[in-house]
């Protein structure tokens, strides 16, 4: 279409100029941005009507009349140029991008703003920064990219959960999840998968993302009202561009690798450790007891001498269970996209395939996506657009996402006693496993199966109608549909399946979310200096979710693995839930010569989740900005090229509570003797209302030395008012607690972002960007003048609340435990400090002190990009500091095989107390009394297991080569790039477990992986 049009225009020019020819000038118009030819650029002989448009290769031929010596070359989005022809017959013209019109545009609530006009705290991440990263969801890729945005992967499951917190943790019992919006579709990002983690955001191929904007202050977010208290993440996908269809093929392959193996004891080492523990406990025949603990005591042991038994122990074999169960996995990604269109219709289509194995076979992630984005101008007034994302994901599931399950390889691989052979001599699995685990996890892992499938449709359709030149009405409709289906089979050949002759489970879960937004925009400029605009809108959301699941036991053989073959149905169950929300909003902006900027918004929001008395809430905000660089005293200043002061105040709400939390209900529960039961499940709570995030934000945006140094600094004070806390109800009154809006929480912090062009000389450039965030999170007030919550004393006034592991989990609070001070050097018994600062073996509740939380108060990222000719090197670091965590996996191993017959870490065992005078933190090994000293707390009590989770990580290292466009043109390509990339290549941390980055208890979780890829991008 475009082509026909161009040729037509060209012909038109040709006929106009046919009779005036004098000399012929040819040339090519190229863009200085990418050195690619520009088709459709206009080339006019100055002072005449003679002109032409460049063809598809950017070339033009023009008859220039005698006396004319200047060509005017122009193209939309580029600075027009005048070129003197002189006596040349071939004139190549390079156009520069027009900085003024191409000025960065930021997507804010229900619209876009030029960056210059933004007055809130908004971070922007360009899609190209996270391009081709082997990560299944974009939230994971946001780690370290923007100040104030803290991202932690929950584990190493491909497509697993990601914990994202914008400006700290603002709620204790309601959710802390930001609102994710993709092309105007507000997503529900709760997981709901039964058999693995299926991150809902993994529906989108990262390479389809144009940009990500993060609204951080309440004033910017207030237009989203009741859902915006935890910040808003707005994703804009790639849209069509008028012009020749541009194809891009993208592929990378590589592998996932374990970042670390834990250094555990060998067979003889464990035997000797255990033997010493028996001796310490005063046990007789320690050699025989140790061998018995390991299941390695010969039947004729009573005929053997202690020396002979010792020799048996010292000659025990060692098998590396970790390297048997943890290994390399492959990953691959292929995608094809095309963008194009004409001046009425533009489109972008893409399809992709992504496959990634975890380091724990057979856990993997396989996804296909399809995307279509179409914009059409029906006439001068009406335009239509639609974006449709389809995706299907299939994941092979782990035994369990986490937990100390005996059959969970992520738990047992490091904990199983090392002398147990994995295979028998004939290659079959060894089923006689000594030690408490008693299962061959390699067998369990090989025989069990599970699949989780996720089909997602996220689509929208919108119509824009120009009521007048400066008034636009937009009508927007969207669907967020997610269908989850899963199945799991516990094989009868495995211990957990043997007792029931196999167990099959299945899950289906549908979630449908409908949203419509109606907006009217108006703008006008008075006297050329007063720019006024306003927006009025209404929004309605309805979400329903329902599910069906069942389980059966008793299978004829292991080959029958689906429920229909089960002899006994164990259960079948279903659920339904839903909610509705509606709100109207208004937004008004004014600026004077783009110098002084003012914005006010208000949203009136109602949700079915809240009590009848508090169903509606008002969320106002005001913002102001001052572009100092537009003032006379700074205009044209070379050193200070941009300077803006911003201030904002606003309120946003948090509605992340249960759909029926405010209702007094009887629910189905308490079946008895084959008959159905019901019981009161919740108390009516008519006053249950929103949590309110009220933020004051002060910011500076700066640019120095012709914007070679740019960035921003923000200070914020974010208070959560009406904090929802569960007030205890006396159990004698039949309920445990009732939620009330009674507390206050505060997140105060500083965010710093800077981007610099360090060197830009000829062929070489070096660019850096760095961000740093420090947040102080603390409880300001609880109810009834309490200093801490009775149900969780970790939630205390003046202390941070910690980071909840997953949506729906309450904030864990600070660590409030007795302080561990190592072992008594004389006896090897563990000691703690009591409230008077004295050493004690039996600390009591009063001895507890606050020792920090798992929410890192400092974090950020550093990116460096070097380019030399076609070469490009990117090194991206992320870091976190100040978090205190416990790692359940390490805690089990830290017991050093004393409580349970589990393997131990060499680093722990080497530190164990052995003789008087040893100064150490690991107590002497004993076996009696569950490994616990008499009249003592356990060795993991109190702060003994608290770990420092600081880390600096080389999150991404990419080395790429871009081929020269001139070489490519010959083979019909517009772009070619090859790259090698490493993710998580290096981690600097002092952490004894698998990895300091995880969320949750840490027990039996798949650790994060290192990924190495090779890739190619081709444009044609």
């Amino acid at each position, binding site marked *: 279409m475009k082509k026909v049009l161009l040729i037509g225009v060209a012909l038109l020019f040709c006929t106009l100029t046919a009779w005036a020819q004098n000399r012929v000038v040819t040339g090519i118009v190229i863009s200085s941005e990418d050195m690619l030819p520009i088709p459709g650029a206009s080339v006019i002989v100055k002072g005449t009507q003679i002109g032409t448009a460049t063809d598809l290769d950017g070339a033009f031929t023009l008859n220039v009349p005698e006396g004319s010596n200047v060509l005017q070359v122009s193209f939309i989005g580029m600075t027009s140029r005048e070129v003197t022809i002189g006596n040349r017959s071939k004139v190549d013209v390079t156009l520069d991008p027009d900085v003024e019109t191409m000025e960065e545009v930021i997507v804010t609530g229900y619209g876009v703003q030029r960056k210059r006009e933004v007055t809130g705290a908004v971070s922007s991440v360009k899609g190209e920064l996270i391009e081709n990263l082997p990560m299944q969801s974009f939230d994971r890729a946001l780690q370290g990219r923007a100040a104030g945005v803290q991202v932690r992967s929950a584990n190493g499951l491909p497509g697993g959960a990601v914990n994202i917190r914008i400006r700290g943790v603002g709620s204790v019992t309601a959710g802390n999840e930001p609102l994710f919006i993709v092309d105007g579709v507000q997503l529900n990002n709760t997981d709901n998968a039964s058999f693995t983690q299926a991150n809902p955001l993994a529906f989108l191929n990262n390479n389809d993302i144009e940009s990500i904007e993060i609204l951080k202050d309440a004033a910017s977010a207030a237009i989203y009202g009741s859902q915006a208290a935890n910040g808003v993440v707005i994703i804009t996908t790639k849209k069509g561009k008028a012009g020749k269809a541009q194809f891009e093929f993208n592929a990378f392959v590589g592998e996932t690798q374990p970042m670390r193996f834990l250094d555990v004891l060998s067979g003889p080492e464990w035997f000797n450790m255990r033997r010493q523990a028996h001796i310490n406990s005063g046990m007789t025949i320690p050699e025989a007891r140790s061998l018995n603990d390991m299941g390695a005591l010969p039947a004729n042991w009573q005929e053997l001498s202690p020396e002979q038994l010792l020799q048996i122990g010292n000659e025990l074999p060692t098998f590396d269970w970790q390297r048997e169960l943890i290994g390399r996995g492959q990953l691959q990604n292929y995608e094809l996209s095309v963008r194009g269109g004409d001046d009425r219709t533009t489109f972008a289509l893409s399809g992709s395939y992504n496959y990634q194995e975890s380091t724990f076979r057979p856990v993997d992630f396989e996804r296909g996506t399809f995307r279509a984005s179409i914009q059409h101008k029906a006439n001068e007034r009406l335009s239509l657009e639609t974006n449709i994302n389809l995706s299907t994901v299939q994941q092979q599931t782990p035994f369990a996402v986490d937990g100390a399950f005996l059959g969970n390889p992520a738990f047992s691989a490091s904990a199983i006693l090392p002398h147990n052979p994995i295979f028998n001599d004939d290659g079959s699995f060894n089923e006689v496993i000594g030690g408490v685990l008693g299962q061959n996890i390699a067998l369990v892992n090989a025989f069990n199966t599970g699949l989780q499938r996720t089909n997602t449709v996220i689509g929208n359709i919108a119509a824009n109608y120009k009521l*007048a030149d400066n008034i636009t009405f937009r009508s927007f409709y969207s669907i967020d549909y997610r269908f989850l289906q899963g199945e799991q089979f516990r094989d009868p050949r495995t211990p957990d399946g043997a007792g029931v002759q196999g167990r099959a489970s299945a899950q289906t879960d549908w979630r449908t979310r409908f949203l419509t937004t109606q907006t009217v925009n108006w703008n006008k400029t008075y006297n050329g200096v007063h720019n006024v605009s306003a927006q*009025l809108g209404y929004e309605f959301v309805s979400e329903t979710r329902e599910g069906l699941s069942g389980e059966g036991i008793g299978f004829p053989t292991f080959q029958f693995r689906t429920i229909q073959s089960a002899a*006994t149905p164990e259960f079948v169950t279903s659920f339904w839930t839903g*909610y509705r929300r509606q709100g109207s909003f208004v937004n008004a902006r004014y600026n004077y010569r783009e110098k002084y900027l003012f914005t006010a918004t208000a949203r009136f929001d109602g949700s079915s989740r809240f009590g009848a008395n508090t169903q509606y809430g008002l969320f106002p905000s005001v913002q102001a900005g001052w572009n100092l660089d537009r003032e006379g005293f700074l205009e044209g200043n070379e050193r200070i090229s941009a300077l803006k002061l911003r201030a904002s105040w606003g309120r946003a709400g948090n509605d992340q509570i249960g759909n029926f939390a405010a209702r007094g209900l009887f629910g189905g529960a308490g079946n008895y003797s084959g008959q159905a039961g019901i019981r009161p499940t919740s108390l009516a709570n008519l006053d249950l209302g929103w949590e309110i995030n009220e933020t004051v934000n002060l910011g500076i945006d700066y640019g120095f030395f012709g914007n070679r140094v740019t960035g921003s600094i923000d200070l914020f004070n974010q208070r959560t008012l009406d904090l929802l806390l569960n007030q205890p109800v006396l159990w004698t009154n039949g309920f445990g607690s009732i939620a009330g809006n009674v507390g206050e929480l505060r997140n105060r912090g500083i965010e710093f972002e800077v981007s610099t062009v360090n060197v830009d000389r000829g062929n070489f450039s070096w660019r850096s960007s760095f961000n740093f965030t420090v947040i102080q999170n603390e409880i300001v007030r609880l109810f009834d003048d309490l200093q801490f919550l009775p149900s969780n004393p970790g939630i205390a006034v003046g202390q941070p609340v910690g980071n909840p592991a997953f949506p729906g989990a309450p904030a864990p609070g600070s660590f409030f435990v007795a302080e561990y001070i190592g072992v008594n050097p004389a006896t090897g018994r563990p000691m703690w400090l009591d409230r008077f600062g004295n050493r004690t073996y039996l600390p009591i509740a009063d001895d507890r002190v606050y020792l920090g939380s798992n929410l890192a108060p400092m974090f950020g990222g550093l990116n460096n990009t070097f380019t030399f000719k076609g070469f490009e090197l990117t090194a991206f670091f992320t870091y976190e500091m100040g978090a205190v965590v416990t790692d359940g996996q390490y805690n*089990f191993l830290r017991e050093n095989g004393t409580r349970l017959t589990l393997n131990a870490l060499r680093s722990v065992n080497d530190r164990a107390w052995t003789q008087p005078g040893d100064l150490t933190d690991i107590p002497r090994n004993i076996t009696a009394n569950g490994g616990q000293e008499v009249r003592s707390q356990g060795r993991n009590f109190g702060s003994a297991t608290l770990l420092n989770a600081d880390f600096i990580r080389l999150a991404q290292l990419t080395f790429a080569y871009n081929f020269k466009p001139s070489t490519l043109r010959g083979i019909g390509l517009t772009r070619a790039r090859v790259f090698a990339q490493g993710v998580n290549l290096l981690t600097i941390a002092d952490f004894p477990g698998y990895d300091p980055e995880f969320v949750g208890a840490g027990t039996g979780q798949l650790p994060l992986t290192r990924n190495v890829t090779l890739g190619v991008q081709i444009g044609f």
Partner: protein
Amino acid sequence: MKIRNWIYILSASVLLSGGLVSCSLDVDPRQSIDADIALDTQEGVNAAINSVYARLRAQANYGRDLLGVSDALADVGRTTNNSGRFIGENNNQPNAHFGHWANSYFAINEANILLDRIAAGNIQGANQGTLDRWEGELKFLRALYYFDLVKAYSYIPTAIHLPGVVDEGGIPMPLEGSITSDVAVNRLTPRSTIDENYDQIMSDLNDAIRLLTPGGRGVQFASGNAAQALLARVALYRGEYQTAVEAATGALAGPVGTVLNANNYAAGWRTAVHPESVFEVRFQLSEEALGVNVSKQSSFTVLLNLENKNAQGGWGDFIPQQKILDLFGLEQLFIGPDPDAEGALANNNNWDVTRNEDVRAFQYTTGNTVRNAGRQIESIKFLAKNDFPWVITRL
């Protein structure tokens, strides 16, 4: 643009927004119903009474702790440390104790709500017989829960008179339901005296005896007979021995429960419903079981069944101590054909115990070595109870 258009557009959009804002936000749950209407029908009340029974199944009540923790706190056994459970209780560590307070009061509150509702009358489809049965069953249940609480959280009445023991009072005893947030937040029920607690329990039981037929609805539900049996025990604790004798005599004469002779004693424990039971908490469906980690069977034995002792079963966390073994003459005994045969000693099916003439000795046998805890002598009382389908074993 003309002012007129402007006004037109603005008012249209205000109408649009305003009109829609008045849309209904009512969304009703589909798997729950409002508390106001839940107990208006006979079916609703029946189902709600089932829930009061079902709470007896909780781990903190008869699911495990009232039997398992009682034993662990006493001196009858020791922990094996197989799964790490019961260690604190066995060591009598602070806070390692019963925890049935919350679940019991939740059950009592449900019973109180139901008794209030029954007293209010006008329940669709309920005749006087039904109303009486409901009231009787609920009063029996309330008495049982209060008795379990008062035993664990206050002194036994007959012990208060011992020198040095001071009556610290009984337990809080709300007798009205709490279903509104107002009552839930503001009602502060004080401790009653122990006497008041026992008076109320006995009064509830006497009402139950009066209202229920002796046989009731069967052994898994409250019956007049069961109320008499419980009354006998309550009276015994209180030291009212004459009442205890009368109530026990009444219970034994009733139709529920048959006392077994010595020959049938051990077999009685292997049946799904114990023939001697006058009231038995039912674990009927596999989903009601507490599973392989904390069920009674798993707590006391590692065996899955007696047919094959080599099969991996529970944890066997708590086993009898030497005094008990001596009491019943229990010692490990090889019963296989040839101890010298390959693997004969390792085969758990080749092992049992010696027993003296006490029939209770048949409640014990050897476990297995599957978890490498060594073969121990274990109690197999709960082996036949259907509370043991396999949830996934974990530490």
